């Protein structure tokens, strides 16, 4: 009885199991436990949350292996970690540490301004950010087993995530309306492989799970993203940069499950204390916009 690891089905299937859930950024074992207790489906282990990366500047890299192992030991839920765009050695290191998912992330400083990691060669699955359908399909073509909208990480401003979700889903709806002989030009315009374009046009959805990320700070933000067709939500700085992380984390989990029930969202939103302060994306000078990293 042969056992095949790292197959497409095993990688994409792992993301299917996270659907309807919230994945939370954590920087140490204590935060990871708070996230698990609040009902997170997974944690993202990183050294600094995006809001701090933004505030402190400098080059942001893969986290210290010791810190990742402490988080792995602290919780029973899946542990994800970030590698820089194109930094395949960081990804190899993370795989050897046994993380459950790698986020090839624009939140870290890119290591390669032309190429992303060739993700097919890895046993561990990858999630990648996208601002539009073409970008999502290019990442899937490179082996990504899960896509997330980029949003603008570390801002607490949900407008970019909203824009990316509308963009991706709008383009999918448009593809579904095209004649078969128009898909060749659509593929050219999307700068994505024809086979993937045809698959999306036929199924009316991406071939992998689509989460949303970047700027989600409240239960209502999480529910908004779910109603825009997200399969689940990443919350980065929104939880541990707020007044009461444990309560806010649990509230976001509840709102993600009952995204279509305003009463539940209202209850979840009560008495959460201060939300993260936030930055308006429009006030960010272009070189500091993380969503524009990735090609």
């Amino acid at each position: 009885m042969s056992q095949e690891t790292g197959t497409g089905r095993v990688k994409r299937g792992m993301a299917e199991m996270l659907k309807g859930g919230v994945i939370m950024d954590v920087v140490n074992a204590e935060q990871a436990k708070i996230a698990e207790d609040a009902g997170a489906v997974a944690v993202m282990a990183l050294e600094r949350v995006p809001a701090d990366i933004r505030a402190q500047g400098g080059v942001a890299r893969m986290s210290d292996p010791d810190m990742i192992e402490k988080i792995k030991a602290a919780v029973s839920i899946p542990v994800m970690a970030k590698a820089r765009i194109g930094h395949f050695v960081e990804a190899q290191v993370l795989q050897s540490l046994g993380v459950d998912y790698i986020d090839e992330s624009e939140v870290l400083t890119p290591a390669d301004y032309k190429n992303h990691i060739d993700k097919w060669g890895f046993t561990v699955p990858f999630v990648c950010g996208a601002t539009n359908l073409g970008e999502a399909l290019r990442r899937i073509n490179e082996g990504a087993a899960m896509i997330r909208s980029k949003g603008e990480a570390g801002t607490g401003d949900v407008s970019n995530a909203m824009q990316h979700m509308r963009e991706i889903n709008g383009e999918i709806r448009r593809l579904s309306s095209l004649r078969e002989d128009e898909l060749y030009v659509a593929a050219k315009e999307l700068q994505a492989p024809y086979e993937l374009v045809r698959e999306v046009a036929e199924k009316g959805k991406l071939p992998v799970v689509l989460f949303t990320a970047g700027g989600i700070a409240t239960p209502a933000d999480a529910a908004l993203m779910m109603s825009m067709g997200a399969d689940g939500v990443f919350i980065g700085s929104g939880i541990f940069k707020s007044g009461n992380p444990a309560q806010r984390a649990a509230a976001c989990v509840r709102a993600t499950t009952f995204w279509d029930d305003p009463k539940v969202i209202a209850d979840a939103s009560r008495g959460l204390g201060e939300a993260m302060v936030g930055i308006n994306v429009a006030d960010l000078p272009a070189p500091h916009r993380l969503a524009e990293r990735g090609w």
Partner: protein
Amino acid sequence: MKVGVLALQGDVREHMSALIACGVEPLAVRRPDEVSHVDAMVIPGGESTTIAQLARIFGVFDVMRERISKGMPVYGSCAGMILLADEILDAKAGQETFGGLDITVRRNAFGRQVDSFESDISFRDGSTDLIRAVFIRAPWVERVGVGIEVLAEVDSHPVAVRSASVLATSFHPELTGDHRIHRYFIEEVARVAIQQVK
């Protein structure tokens, strides 16, 4: 037969499609009164700690536990198996289960995601055809109580078990497009159990 899929978190959609392919009309179930209105339930794959917690918060937990103990037919895959086990190992501190199956299940027993695998296994439903089974951070059964039948094994660990009304698999038949396990649950577990109650 009204079959509900517990829709708090996890791969609900895939189970719904598999049930539709077996000719039943599934209902997504998130509230206590919805649990009361179905004849049978499926607990999807997902994160068992998250599902248990949401079930508690939204009042579904006790209704599920009670209905399962009174013989409502249930099928659980992966996280669903964990939630149906009377006893779990490597659990989060204080992690609860609905219970109903007299088994002990070890969470993530096959390892982390890098160890997740697929394999052809035999399933003892009378057919000799192998079934493609997808194991994702999968649990296995470490102890089987009286009256529990083992339907499939991997490396001599039980990965599919049943009682009179409860079926559980550590793998995810909902991901493969082969609906044999769902059909087995509907025809050989749920229909028979419901018939006996009547």
